[in-house]
């Protein structure tokens, strides 16, 4: 569905406000964690992005690229399959539980993330050069949308690595999922696990209370 401009602005506002308004838009249950507080976009920018200025000025994916409201359920699917975030971050996003044993295993703990929505969109889009976090925007480093840099600007062993490419809407969807359903979560619970796998009694959940 193509949203008109006011709807897109509403979606944008929802993103900036940490998805406080998204539960009404997404076909998902109420968030388990409190909605994130709206933080100034640049407040928690990571080191890799620190010289990129205000991420809202030149993000890889413009928030206005969201032609539809962020869809948390779709974002979960992107996390699980399309972008395969779970390969390194694990199903609960803590960077170790349930990850691929042959993955690098040094992924960030998204549950403890301090990153705001805009910064997270930028990192999913552009990756973190010099780390194992890959970029997911197919045009990243082909133009200067990511930190103003091109692939050739990096030494061969420092080049950012590509992940599974996902479109702008899905980058926003997956960030919405992480912001809403992963970030800020405490200890893993059985209920959270069974909700993630959408299966009561899932094998991965048997040891949780």
């Amino acid at each position: 569905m193509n949203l008109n401009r006011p709807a897109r602005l509403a979606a944008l506002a929802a993103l900036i406000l940490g998805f406080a308004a998204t539960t009404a838009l997404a076909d998902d249950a109420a968030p388990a964690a409190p909605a994130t507080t709206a933080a100034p976009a640049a407040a928690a920018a990571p080191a890799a992005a620190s010289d990129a200025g205000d991420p809202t000025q030149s993000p890889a994916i413009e928030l206005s690229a969201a032609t539809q409201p962020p869809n948390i359920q779709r974002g979960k699917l992107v996390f699980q399959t399309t972008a395969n975030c779970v390969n390194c971050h694990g199903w609960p996003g803590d960077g170790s539980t349930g990850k691929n044993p042959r993955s690098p295993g040094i992924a960030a703990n998204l549950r403890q993330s301090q990153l705001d929505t805009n910064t997270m969109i930028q990192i999913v889009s552009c990756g973190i050069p010099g780390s194992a976090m890959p970029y997911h925007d197919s045009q990243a480093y082909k133009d200067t949308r990511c930190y103003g840099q091109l692939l050739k600007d990096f030494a061969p062993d420092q080049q950012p690595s590509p992940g599974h490419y996902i479109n702008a809407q899905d980058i926003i969807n997956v960030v919405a999922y992480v912001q809403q359903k992963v970030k800020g979560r405490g200890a893993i619970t059985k209920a959270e696990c069974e909700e993630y796998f959408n299966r009561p009694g899932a094998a991965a959940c048997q040891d949780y209370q």
Partner: protein
Amino acid sequence: MTTKKLMLTGLLTATVFGLASASFAAQPPAPAAATTTAATPTAGDPVSADQLANAGTDDKQAGNWLMVNKTYDSNRYSSLNEITPDNVAGMKLAFAVPLNGLEPSSFGVGALEGTVLAKDGFLYAVDGWGTPYKIDATSGKEGKIVWICDTGITKDPTSGLLIANRGLALVGNNVITNLNDGRVVACDDSTGQVAWQQQITKNPGEGFDGAPLVADGKIIVGQAFGDWATRGFIAALDAATGKELWRFYTVPEPGQPGSDTWKCDQAKNPDCWKTGGAAAWVTGSYDPSTKTLYWGTGNPVPMFDPEYRPGDNLYSNSTVALDAETGKLKWYFQYTPGDYHDYDEVGSQQLVNVKIGGEDRKVLAHFGRNGIFYTLDRTNGAFIQGTPYVNKLNWTKGLDPKTGLPVEYDPSKSLQVYGTGALNRAGGTVNTCPNLQGGINYWPSAVDPTTNVAYGAGIEGCSNLTNKTVAPNAVKAGQIFQGGGATNAEPQKGSVFSYDVATGKQIAKQGLPYPNYAGVSITPSLLFAGQVDGTFGAYDKKTLEEKWSINIGNAFEAPPTIFAINGKEYVAIEGGPIGNADFGYPELKGKPAANMLYVFSL
């Protein structure tokens, strides 16, 4: 074949192997009937103990590949020599067979790592879920699926396991598979129906993914999921019923010999041995003359946090020699005590009879994941020699010539510090070479028994390791437990190489553009190997130069099988998803894949 003959064959098998007609061991889940897709299943002759024992020497077996590494000494050497360096330019794809099993685990798609077995023109393939396929290749032009044995495996998308299986075993009229849910299942070769099944593992997280080995009338299996917070073991089952006869734990419990190498109390974590790993996830070897099994074991768990499990951690990273009749330990050799580099030593344990210094020696040759090519005296485990076979090795300055242990090893310390520096909870990064995946990891090497030259292919490069402490109460059996992480220090390369077992000296070595993650098989004149970029190639065995190759698109993480149909030589190999074996190459990352069995010939 007529029904009458089928029944007779079945009767004979039952007599020879003592199969009671009611040998269905009642175990959940109830298996369904096999998917039979060919009109006339062919039973063939039962696989006998003699056939297995003489798999490498009996001319009648020259065209077959009856066990995962071809022979009990794991030489992966076929005497077939129709395809040679002179004519291999005419090699082509003869036919291909799609396989099932791309269903994902919770973190993504699995891998195809299995060796295909070959018997009298029929192929036995396995997918990542351990499901056996019998394929009629007798025409040489097409692979017709005779049956797919429904083991009743739950393809659980919530599984946190790596979905991979490395092969099958043949015994009597049964095809044996072992599964990641801890069951061992016999599928009837004639019908593809489950003949019996046994739930061998009892604890959460335990299961199998290496190929079973039939030896001494037993089926030998290894608990594979050490990195999922479990305790490794090797078990022997009655070949006719699957009933467990003995079990050897690769991590001793308190009070047993070797238990003092798990200083769990020092870590204020008295149960650390219970999740100590040392998994037996790759098939070992067998010497029928002494009834000795030789098995490699995996890393101590968690791999990157030695402070969780201080001590040498026996019998991790070891070769263990076991009495096949009793499962009693005869000797062990631990390659990297108290390891923190993930250098488990499950790879090929090759039994070679060779003259060293004018003396006839029975040796065990092993390309260590730690980058060193070892020879041990297989009668007692004594170290003979060790030579680095990777271009860069920094984790040790060398081996003690008497003990074969790394020179940095200090038996008085509970936390070892190797040449790479300590990896511990204080933080920092350890740069280790070779890559934590090897060298050679699970994928097999080969030995030419006519020359006693060993052949392998692997990774050239280094890893950066970091520690991430996990609290004991956060450790869950069945969930991956590594205590840290690793990245490729730089884009990794590969190589293919040959070494003289008698001297430990390199004979030939060639670089490969990508790391090899699949292993090798050899003939009198050629070495065959698949590569992660989809290249399947034939290499001159003398020089290891590539003589022919084709790129089929899928990644190869499984080794080749060399076999014959009516005297004509073929090579079979499974190809599929690349998983995480892209080693940082953007062109390989996340490639689409299909699970396929390819068969090549002139």
